[in-house]
């Protein structure tokens, strides 16, 4: 006998309960998933703030209104928007992606699950809550004499340092003694993580010390510009090298062209990255020789970039067709091109005569854009493209959204960076020619408008990535990949 039921009359308890997936699955790759999802959200946030930062230069305005709490007020102006943009980009988008890369690569390189995975998952929450609080605080609290990446309240910087320590500890515990014979990506990642944790710890310590003993403004300013530059050269550059040396052999399915070149890349970067930050200490109280040594180290950072470029391009041999799709290798190749270009531009910019003429102009912002949204972001896109299907076990959408993400990000970053650098060159030459400031501002509009349009395209690329990720999570086709540290249903695909 069959029972015919009217579906309109069925009540909720007649239906079997639907199985709901947790936002972050409780599995071997949950830390990587958490950091990847957070990074995609921060990319969308950072690009919107970035478009605002360029827009505020086209139509300058400031806002201030009291919050009605402890005499605090919400302040909105160029410096605060700039600081929020840089923090959302570096700590939000790029560092979350870097942590995700570490959480993804480490178990696969060492053949064991990530150590302390529950604590590492706590690190995901700790990092992002501290960051959200810190960025909100940038619009409320006094920024003091700090550079953008040191401008958060010490409490939030302490939170960031703690989360960075957790991830570093997890990495070191997973790698253990095997790191000595490990792959070069692990060496890059290890040094970069230790550098990040140390620099964030220094940031928080200075903020705390300033609270009790009120350090001289010059000391705080010098420390903060050093930390800001070192974060770029040690952490972001280091994790970018780690990612590129990992994804290129994986995506091509071929071995790395030269182990010797990779070690030379690592050694030169290790020796030069911390020293190059000395170049920022340009003050009468700092010996001239120190800053010159920093400038020379910045010039020499061209060496590891060129070596990595040559090594990884050689590793792509025979797989050139992969460059013309929207896959991992296309993202990695664009990252490599931007990496070489920005190393060259930074080497030129560190020459004293160039620095004196272009320092403080849009040139500096253009080079930062190429480094952050060109070299570092495309490496992050590459690892996301490679890792997301493997950690979520779902196919990555390769349709118009993936193409849109690649081409909008590439064209937008190229356009915005070129426009800002061109504007910087124009500004420098106009000032040297004695042009009145009003006339200079009018001339710069020609450069800032395309920069705004270009960065808007990058914002759309961020949105495309977020939507693609959402669609993959909700409706992607299931794919089998091996889980590190567990029995492997499919050993391939790492």
């Amino acid at each position: 006998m069959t029972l015919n039921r009217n579906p309109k009359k069925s009540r909720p308890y007649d239906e079997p309960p639907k199985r709901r997936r947790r936002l972050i699955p409780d599995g071997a790759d949950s830390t990587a998933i958490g950091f990847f999802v957070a990074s995609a959200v921060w990319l969308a946030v950072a690009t919107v703030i970035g478009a605002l930062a360029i827009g505020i230069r086209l139509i300058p305005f400031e806002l201030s209104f009291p919050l009605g709490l402890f005499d605090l007020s919400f302040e909105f102006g160029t410096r605060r928007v700039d600081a929020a943009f840089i923090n959302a980009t570096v700590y939000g988008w790029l560092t979350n992606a870097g942590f995700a890369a570490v959480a993804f690569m480490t178990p696969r390189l060492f053949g064991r699950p990530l150590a302390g995975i529950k604590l590492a998952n706590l690190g995901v929450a700790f990092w992002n809550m501290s960051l959200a609080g810190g960025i909100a605080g940038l619009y409320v609290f006094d920024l003091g004499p700090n550079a953008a990446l040191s401008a958060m309240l010490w409490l939030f910087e302490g939170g960031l340092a703690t989360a960075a320590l957790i991830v570093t500890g997890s990495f070191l515990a997973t790698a253990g003694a095997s790191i000595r014979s490990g792959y070069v990506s692990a060496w890059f990642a290890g040094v970069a993580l230790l550098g990040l944790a140390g620099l964030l710890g220094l940031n928080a310590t200075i903020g705390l010390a300033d609270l009790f003993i009120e350090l001289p403004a010059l000391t705080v300013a010098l420390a903060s510009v050093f930390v800001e530059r070192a974060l770029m050269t040690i952490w972001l550059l280091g994790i970018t090298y780690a990612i590129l040396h990992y994804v290129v052999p994986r995506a091509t399915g071929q071995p790395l062209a030269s182990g010797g070149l990779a070690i030379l890349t690592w050694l030169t970067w290790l020796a030069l990255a911390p020293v190059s930050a000395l170049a920022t200490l340009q003050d009468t109280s700092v010996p001239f020789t120190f800053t010159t040594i920093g400038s020379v180290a910045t010039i020499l950072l061209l060496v590891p970039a060129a070596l990595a470029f040559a090594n990884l391009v050689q590793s792509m041999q025979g797989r050139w067709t992969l460059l013309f799709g929207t896959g991992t290798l296309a993202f990695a190749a664009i990252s490599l091109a931007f990496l070489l270009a920005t190393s060259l531009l930074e080497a030129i910019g560190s020459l004293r005569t160039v620095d004196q003429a272009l320092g403080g102009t849009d040139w500096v912002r253009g080079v930062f854009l190429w480094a952050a949204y060109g070299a570092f972001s495309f490496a992050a896109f590459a690892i996301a493209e490679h890792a997301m299907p493997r950690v979520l076990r779902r196919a990555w959408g390769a349709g118009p959204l993936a193409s849109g993400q690649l081409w909008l990000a590439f064209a937008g970053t190229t356009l915005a960076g070129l426009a800002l650098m061109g504007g910087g060159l124009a500004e420098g030459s106009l000032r040297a020619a004695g042009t009145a400031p009003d006339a200079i501002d009018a001339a710069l509009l020609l450069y800032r408008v395309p920069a705004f349009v270009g960065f808007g395209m990058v914002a759309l690329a961020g949105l495309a990535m977020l939507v693609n990720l959402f669609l993959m999570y909700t409706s992607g086709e299931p794919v089998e990949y091996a889980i590190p540290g567990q029995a492997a249903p499919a050993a391939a695909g790492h």
Partner: protein
Amino acid sequence: MTVHTPIETRSSGLPRWAILLTLFVFLVGGVYLAANLVGENPPLAIPGESAEAPVDGSPDPAVGEALVGQATPQCSSCHGADLGGSDPFPSLHGVEEGAVSENLQDFAAEYPDNWAQLWIAGAPETEGIDRLGMPAFGDQFSPQQLDSIVAYLKTLP
């Protein structure tokens, strides 16, 4: 079985071109270092701190020194690291005694009290004088800040 998928390398040696490239770039760096060992850094432009004139409005040479470091382009980029002059740009030492370059002698005689402030600002009074590439800083600094800058320049022997 645990999944361990190490990345292999095709060769472990170091190509000759890589050694030569590294040595060449380090050599260029060494030459640049040797050529730039002596000099003086400009004052640091402390983020967010625009050196303000004192509340009582009197010019302060210390504030002026900080402002000189914050100017864009920096004064030292043309007038030398110690503002002692760098051909063809004149030395800024000796402003206390009067105009330092020939093109300003008549102007300084006409405005003996504030010729330096007017000149640095690029004020309308300076129209007709060849600026010889000197930028106008009138939109970067307030009149009080210009007074402090001149007060600082007058301390240079």
